[in-house]
């Protein structure tokens, strides 16, 4: 697996909707080297996040972001809050682009 993306919100419900869209977009592009999963916030602990490369946080849970980002940084996992318009439009393609942007850390690799 090239990139393992984890999405987290309070109950893992609305991120679940976005994950569905992201998967559709991945299938359309024939990318089977990227995996996407949604969970509820309370699942995020040190052991759990280490299984992923990028952790994306739902904007409505951004008040939890500082703690989660600190935990992710410990293991060099990239993390960020999903921009509201991507989230609201359930824009799977841009959500994946956003994950790549975070994981490349500004460097401009082709995914």
């Amino acid at each position, binding site marked *: 697996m090239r990139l393992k993306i984890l999405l987290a919100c309070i109950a893992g419900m609305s991120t679940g909707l976005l994950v569905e869209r992201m998967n559709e977009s991945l299938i359309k592009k024939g990318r089977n080297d990227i995996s996407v999963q949604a969970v509820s916030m309370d699942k995020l602990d040190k052991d759990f996040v280490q299984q992923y490369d990028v952790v994306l946080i739902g904007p*409505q849970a*951004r008040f939890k972001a500082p703690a989660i980002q600190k935990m992710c940084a410990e293991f060099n996992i990239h993390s960020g809050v999903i921009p509201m318009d991507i989230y*609201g*439009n359930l824009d799977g393609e841009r959500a994946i682009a956003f994950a790549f942007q975070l994981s490349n850390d500004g460097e*401009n690799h082709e*995914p």
Partner: protein
Amino acid sequence: MDRLMRLFDDRITPFLVKIGENRYMIGVKDGMIVTIPFTIIGSLFLIIAYFPVKAWTDFIQPYQAVLTVPVSVTFDMLGVIAVIGISYHLAKNYGLDPILSAILSLIAFLIVQTGKVGQEYTLTIDNFGTKGIFAAIIVAIISVEILRFMLKRNWVIRMPASVPATISKSFELLTPLAVVIMFFWLIRVVIGIDINHVLNLLFSPLVFSLNTLWGILLFMLLRSLLWCVGIHGAAVLSVADPIFLQMLGANTSAVTHGDPVPFITAAGFMNYVFIGGGGATLMLVVFMLFSKDKGLRTLGKLCLPGSIFEINEPVVFGVPVVLNPIMMIPYILGNIILTFTTYLVMYFGLIGKPVVNVPFTMPPILMQYLSSGGDWRAAVYGVIEIIISAVIYYPFFKALEKQRLNQGQQGGEQHESDLTQPMNG
């Protein structure tokens, strides 16, 4: 608008989060979540045993006592489940042995719920349910804190390293267990203070105010405002969850004991209000489906499946409601007006109060029907709520549509180019 967002992000939310995110509150919250599956299963039996159709109740009457057993061992044991859940999660958070901590707290809870009947000391089983929830919270916190303190000070019996971990852990528990038992035994049995009663008295103003019309309206307003700046209101205000859950438990036991149902704003009340998610946005989504604006139509289609199951983040962030003056007004009004009407129809006994724990993803109408324990009038009220929310949203939807149509071509192209952006970062 940005200033409103900053006010919440910099001041109000951190303040509320500070209350909600301290170790104790997280432990209480996670521990209370443990009770939910039990209450849902208990609720299933409650519906079967007390389904409010005369032909059914006549038929089921002889079996009612049998069917009530699963309700009793779930709802009437909420305090027990809570003390185990809370101490487990609190201990886990501290890095202590969770299962030993849970048993330690359970024993402490049992001491607290011991009463003197005549010359004998017996367990007051009546307090094992919702009446014991506040005691469960406090006992769990105190027990785990005593354990943690004594481990930290090394006031425990340590076994040589050669002894297997499980055994040495049990021995470590000896002194804290003695202290915890002595502590609660002294207060409850020797001195004779009814801890459970005292705690219920202390918490009663909070329970009372959240069950008043103004209390719940204020709570709803705060929750709506949080969502209007894009923050998960329920998560930030989860401090109040144990109180609402305690009310629901009290309502459910009232049903099984044939008493009048006491609490209006019990857990589930808000599910009556949230038609298609917070802000009652279902009808907004339906209007969007038939909009003249293509963007709104597309978004409507995107939002509909989630909205039917009361998940409306795409509405909140997509339309958006967040920091959008046109949509913030009906969002807040939707919550406030429907809270008001729901409270009143329950107050005057026109529809049943929440007595059953239904998952929040239950579609509207069905939600009201099931939450009230199968009251058909609640289902009818659900339909009325949909009409009320349609009336609230329609003018604002029209204004939004006009605004988007006026923005015209330029905005549309902007959006297209966003979508077709290449996937690289």
